[in-house]
């Protein structure tokens, strides 16, 4: 029954295509950011990243051949597995940079919080497609999906990984907004969120998290301390000027003034080397991806598929926006990677799977 030639004919190459383009820019940039540091522990990172890329793309393409109805079936078990994995991290996880986020499978280390994002998208899409689609969503309808999101989110936050936790909540709100969250409800939530944020800031945040927020407001206050990243990042971006300093000409990253330059701050290095022109080009690629996703969401014929695509869009968009926002000093510094650009295996795998899922949905769109 499975006709491979037929499958390829209606295969939607756009998602893997755009993502591969961004990744190629990303890997060159990563090579530039790490290689110019000479001999050091970071030298071979781009090779590792390439390995992860091929692994992620193989898995992603495999996922793209799964029928969307199987995603529907996998939603609840997938959710349960991700919650169990999160619980395991809290009990037996590895520590990295003061947080407990990793779990080891033999030689591989994996961040279950990455998997959680996809599991959340699927489980929410399934839940929302079950309810009557005309119905708008108010507080009563929010109880169950909110609880489903809140449990893993809080587990991620206490790892502690505030960034990813907030990201999961943001994805939830974006999906719910798309699924017709009432304007009245949105207004009330916004008011309470503001009050809540004040309370959490004063009582709930760890010191380094608070510091990140205060230094966001005034980075010059403690230039060598926690404001250091923010300032060095701004210097890196700004010094790129219009055309940039050129490939492998970054001085900020090369001289290690910018820490974590290959992960969260990779966008700063890119800006330094390729300037305003480069970032406009890169942002255009991201925009093309988002636009294509949004187009797909409106052009599928199942509400589950539509919500999943918006969910994937939410994952991509929230990562991109938060990362670029923090690197350019628009937002406080939270550890959120830039999709396909930042070094990191787990999140590359997430984005590969995401591409597979939306490609599968796009391919199924033309089947009647």
């Amino acid at each position, binding site marked *: 029954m499975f006709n491979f030639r037929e499958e390829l004919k209606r295969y939607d190459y756009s998602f893997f295509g755009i993502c591969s383009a961004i990744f190629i820019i990303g890997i060159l940039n990563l090579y530039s950011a790490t290689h110019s*540091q000479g001999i050091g522990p970071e030298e071979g990172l781009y090779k590792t990243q390439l390995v992860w890329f091929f692994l992620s793309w193989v898995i992603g393409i495999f996922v793209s051949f799964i029928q969307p109805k199987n995603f529907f079936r996998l939603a609840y078990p997938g959710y349960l597995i991700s919650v169990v994995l999160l619980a395991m991290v809290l009990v037996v996880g590895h520590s990295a940079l003061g947080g407990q986020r990793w779990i080891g499978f033999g030689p591989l280390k994996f961040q279950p919080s990455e998997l959680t994002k996809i599991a959340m998208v699927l489980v929410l899409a399934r839940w929302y497609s079950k309810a009557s689609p005309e119905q708008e969503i108010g507080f009563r309808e929010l109880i169950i999906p909110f609880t489903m999101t809140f449990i893993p989110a809080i587990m991620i936050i206490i790892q502690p990984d505030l960034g990813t936790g907030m990201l999961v909540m943001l994805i939830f709100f974006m999906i719910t907004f798309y699924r017709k969250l009432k304007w009245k409800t949105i207004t009330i939530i916004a008011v309470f969120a503001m009050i809540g944020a004040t309370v959490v800031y004063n009582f709930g945040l760890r010191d380094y998290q608070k510091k990140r927020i205060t230094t966001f407001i005034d980075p010059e206050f403690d230039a060598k301390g926690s404001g250091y990243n923010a300032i060095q990042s701004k*210097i890196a*971006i700004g*010094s790129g000027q*219009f055309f940039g300093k050129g490939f492998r000409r970054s*001085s*900020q990253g090369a001289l290690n003034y910018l820490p974590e330059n290959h992960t969260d701050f990779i966008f700063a290095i890119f800006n330094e080397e390729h300037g305003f022109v480069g970032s406009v080009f890169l942002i255009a690629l991201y925009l093309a991806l988002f636009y294509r996703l949004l187009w797909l*969401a409106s052009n599928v014929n199942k509400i589950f598929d539509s919500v999943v695509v918006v969910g994937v869009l939410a994952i991509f968009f929230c990562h991109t926006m938060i990362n670029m926002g923090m690197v350019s000093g*628009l937002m406080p510094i939270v550890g959120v990677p830039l999709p396909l650009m930042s070094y990191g295996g787990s999140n590359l795998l997430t984005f590969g799977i995401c591409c597979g899922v939306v490609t599968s949905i796009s391919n199924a769109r033309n089947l009647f």
Partner: protein
Amino acid sequence: MFGEDDLVKSHQERADIILNIIVVCFAILLARLWYLQIYHGKMFFNYSLENRLRKDVVRAPRGMIFSRNNVLLTHNVPRFDAIITPQYLEGDDETIPYLAKILEMPADSIIKTLKKYQGQAKYLPVVVKKNISRREVAIIETESSKLPGVSVETFISREYTDKDTGAHLLGYISEISQEKLPRLRERDKYDYKQGDFIGQGGIEQQYDLEIRGEDGYQFMEVDARGRARRHVTSDDLYSGIDNKPPIPGKNVRLTIDRDVQLAAYHALEGKDGSAIAIDVESGEIIAMVSLPAYDPANFSTGLSSNYWGSLVMDDKRPLRDRSIQEHYSPGSTFKPLTAIAALEEGIVDENTKVVCNGGYRMGGRVFHCWKKEGHGVVDVVRALKESCDVYFYSIGNKIDIDVIYKYATLFGMGQRSGIILPRETSGLIPNQEWKKKRTGVEWQKGETLSCVIGQSFVNVTPLQLAMFYATMANEGKLWRPHVVKEVFSNSGQVLKRVEPELIHQFKISRKTMDLVHEALFNTANAQGGTAGASKGVGIQMSAKTGTAQVISFSADKIFNKCENQEYKYRNNGLFAAYAPAGNPKIAVSVVVEHGCHGASAGGPVAKAMISAYMNKYYPSYQKKIMAQENSKMTWQQIVEDNRLNPVPMIQETDTKDYYDETGKLIRSFTLEKAGQVQTGPLE
């Protein structure tokens, strides 16, 4: 699921809103990037140029330590290591044998060293040979084209003019270990950095914060690999860059006289123990030697871990400053204290006589005199002169230990002197309360008998012993001992001057003092005095010997010849004196561990210190002593002669010029006064 297609369409409105949100977000982001890269681009570009600069620490030269006459005792010497950076090493087959030839070492050992560090990053240099000669430096630098990857690294070594002569007094410096860093920062409220050196022991430790100076920094332009390219000054391309020159450490002038110190060291060499000379009128320490010692320079030239380890493992504990960190039974050198207490309290007077027949019976136990056959009839002067134990046992039978405690405390024993040096110990003078508290048992009368001859619980540091004799010499003034005279800046300005400090002054009756002076003079000069053998040419001193058991012997072994005992069971020999007898200026104490006899072991050391000091500072008085050398004057004659022909006791040597270890003048204050500040050596 018919009609679901339409349901998806009904979400179009929300999809459009999301699209708008995305567009607005990216518009804000692009506006931000425009603001940073184009509006403020130039400014940030300049910032990033500044970031090309590396801030290098410029180490402050550590302050120097001078003797009382400004002879340099400690100085900073540039030394060189030959290093290989494996990253740049090429043509191993030729380079390494060639380097080996230059350094006169086997090529195999260079290869072995490189192998040892194979695991670390290739850009980290490996030290091939430490402390290479200037000739080797010159060859490596001229032949650098044939030696890719080989270079010379300079470091500042802290060196000590007289090596181990003042090891404990001066201390040494060593690198602060990673673990100790936070604790030291907390303790000193000083921001020590990794790789910083810190003074350990002696003056280097005690005055570390003054000597260490303040590191500066120097901006270096670095290339993309972080390697230095050139120094940057404010007038270069980079405006507003300020280098901070280091502030050199302050210098310290000691009260120590190098000649007396060397005399003490050479006289004590080969023995274990301590020798101290102290100024009777001020508490200034003239010499302070502890042996066995170590070469403090070894700690800063990088041999530290092995060297330190071997010092720590050494049974003789060479790291310990025996002068102040160790205490000993004073033995007979303590007897003058017992005599003073008994005379002052009226327990004995000059006419009290005791018959010594070699032992003293009390409570069924016999206390032996060191002289088996006994001394016969003795009074207090003869008892001190011949060190008759039985006479003092008879005092011990009548005196309360608390009275001994009172007098010993007045003379500075059993308490820390307050000398500004690390880890001084207090010694011990017992009293009834102490014993009760310590052991729960009441004081036993028999214990007093042991204490009055300086045995049992009585323990003093060599420094306390010197202070005791100094206080007898000046008749009741207990000075705070000190080793530092001044702290002064590189331009010669005195920043801190240590003035003599009187701890307390107390009254001893004239009669008691006269008896003790006479007795101690006779000990060193008259027929039969225990210290008589030590009397040297041109030395007029009052002294007392002491021989302290380190373990209790059973009665049959007491009179065995000491030299036949195993080394560690041999008695300690002590010698304490003040000089000149008629007009005391200097008090000395010598402890020789397992030296068997005070006179033979300690006497020559004391004599060497006194001779060196008197001949240097009081040559006129020495002339007089030499003239009277053969007249064998009694104590009374000396007192009378001093009254009739007084010699003004003014120190005649007091130079303000600086000399290096070879005696070369390196800085003259006469020049400085004329406005010519001279910092380098004078040619």
